[in-house]
């Protein structure tokens, strides 16, 4: 029954693979084996995986084939995936790419994992990230940096650099990442693929190892917009185990596909075309905006006046929440424990000194400072108030517009090591993505073109729970430019 070779199998989109599985033209076992072979052939160059779960994958693929044979097939049944390694998986090491959790084996599944398993998706392994999702290049992984499939001397972005590189390098069909300030969208942009950060509360965070609880959100990373809608259908929805998840009747997001853009009002906030944005990136995005107009959308410049403050607000709120969330790593209940011979307090300090990397420690210290007596009002409380103003900017804009478009990142993928010595340079990577986390709104990055041979992402932000509109625009745009059909990374 096999008519495709392994090279063709790994290049399939989720939708295409799903239809071949359904028609029994391929089996999940052969699809899964093709991906495992691909991982074993190329991942020593890309380094997208922290853990490869060969045995689990083959077992799940056999079960999926049996399920398909019985006529019980869902869109993700038999589809091989990678999960970012801050999404916990029962019985499978989940490290957050940190020495602190390098031996941690969860005893339960996160809600998203449970849902994906329930639909018959296949776990190929766990994806590399900046330690505890703190970073924009995946160079802050305690294990190794991940490389960009478009140019292995460049970063894939971050913090979901493992998942985005894995999808771009055909090491899995889709992946899940997490996005606290741009960690799905920015690496999706750098790797020339599609990444969605859903509305805060649309996808359960139960079993996502916490970084900044009011900003974190899990989302799909896929080869195209159609696949993204399919994965979102599976992971979205209320979860009683996450008290911040929204009780919401989730629509079928694939119904938003294949529509034109007549009647859609799109705003272009001028503050997102900042000084310091690469000319090549700006050129590609200006062309994209013209294409959106030619597809029927009304496009108009607008202003979000508090945008300048978003970076400061984010780098106060996220580290503050992180300092509280990461207080749990004490080397007692789980995780790394220093063998320092001192007393309890000294051992605790050594556990956290040796278990965390520099960026994580920097953010814990920053957050501790912002929350400490005498500084709380000046930093944390002030940032929360400005957060209200940033939200209001968006609320105001969404009275006029159905969506806002802008670049995902000010630059294309940069070289490894280029920004590692300068935390502020690294933080500036998130400047165009983090406002969506501050406001809790959805944002997608869709490939828009190339600049110097490297992918540029177009970002589309929508109203709270406006994923259908965001997907509709992204899909219409994707169909118009056919990025994936025209551009792929050179063979690895």
């Amino acid at each position, binding site marked *: 029954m096999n008519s495709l070779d392994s090279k063709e199998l790994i290049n399939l989109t989720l939708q295409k693979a799903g239809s071949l599985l359904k028609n029994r033209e391929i089996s999940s076992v052969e699809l899964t084996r093709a991906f495992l072979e691909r991982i074993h052939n190329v991942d020593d160059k890309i380094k997208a995986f922290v853990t490869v779960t060969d045995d689990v994958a083959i077992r799940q693929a056999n079960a999926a084939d049996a399920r398909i044979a019985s006529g019980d097939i869902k869109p993700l049944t038999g589809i091989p995936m990678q999960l970012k390694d801050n999404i916990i998986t029962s019985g499978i090491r989940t490290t957050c790419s940190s020495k602190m959790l390098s*031996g941690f084996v969860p005893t339960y599944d996160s809600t998203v994992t449970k849902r994906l398993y329930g639909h018959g998706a296949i776990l190929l392994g766990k994806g590399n990230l900046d330690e505890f999702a703190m970073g924009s290049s995946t160079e802050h992984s305690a294990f190794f940096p991940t490389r960009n499939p478009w140019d292995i001397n460049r970063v894939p972005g971050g913090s979901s650099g493992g998942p985005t590189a894995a999808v771009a390098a055909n090491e899995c069909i889709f992946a899940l990442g997490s996005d606290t300030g741009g960690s799905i969208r920015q690496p999706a942009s750098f790797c020339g693929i599609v990444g969605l950060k859903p509305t805060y509360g649309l996808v359960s965070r139960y079993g996502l190892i916490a970084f900044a609880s*009011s900003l974190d959100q899990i989302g799909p990373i896929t080869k195209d917009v159609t696949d993204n809608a399919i994965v979102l259908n599976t992971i979205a929805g209320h979860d009683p185990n996450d008290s911040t998840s929204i009780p919401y009747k989730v629509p079928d997001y694939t119904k938003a596909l294949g529509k034109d853009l007549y009647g859609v009002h799109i705003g272009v906030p001028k503050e997102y075309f900042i000084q310091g944005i690469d000319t090549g990136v700006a050129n590609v995005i200006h062309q994209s905006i013209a294409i959106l107009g030619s597809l029927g959308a009304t496009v108009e410049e607008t202003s979000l006046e508090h945008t300048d403050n978003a970076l400061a607000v984010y780098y106060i709120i996220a580290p503050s929440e992180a300092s509280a969330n990461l207080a749990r790593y004490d080397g007692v*209940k789980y995780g790394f424990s220093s063998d320092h011979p001192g007393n309890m307090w000294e051992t605790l300090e050594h556990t956290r000194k040796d278990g965390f990397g520099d960026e994580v420690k920097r953010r814990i*210290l920053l957050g501790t400072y912002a929350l400490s007596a005498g500084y709380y009002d000046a930093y944390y409380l002030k940032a929360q108030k400005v957060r209200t103003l940033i939200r209001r900017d968006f609320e105001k804009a969404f009275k006029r517009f159905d969506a806002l478009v802008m670049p995902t990142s000010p630059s294309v993928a940069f070289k490894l090591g280029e920004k590692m010595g300068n*935390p*502020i340079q690294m933080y500036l990577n998130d400047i165009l993505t983090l406002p969506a986390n501050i406001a809790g709104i959805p944002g997608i990055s869709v490939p828009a073109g190339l600049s110097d041979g490297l992918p540029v992402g177009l970002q589309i932000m929508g109203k709270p729970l406006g994923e259908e509109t965001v997907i509709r625009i992204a899909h219409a745009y994707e169909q118009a430019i056919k990025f994936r059909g025209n551009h792929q990374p050179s063979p690895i």
Partner: protein
Amino acid sequence: MSIRITNEEIRHIALLARIGITPAEIDLIRDQMSEILKGFDILNNVDVEGIRPTGHSVDLKTVTREDKARESQSIEDTLLNAPHRQNEFVRVKPVLE
């Protein structure tokens, strides 16, 4: 570069956060944090008079569930990842000496 934060403050925060830092690291941490804090000055120009803080982007109400006993994780699973254990207990260093 203007110093926003002193070595003494860095040592105090590190103690609050229970993160050991070495004397060799402290100047670099101070300089980097000073630089980051300088970036926060932009917020001094924002008028927030009468503005309520946002803690969560979703307007959350207290979520409750029925107070009904449920099966919880087994002792063995709970202790599975503990670095030091003895029988059914987590082993820790003396808290009061």
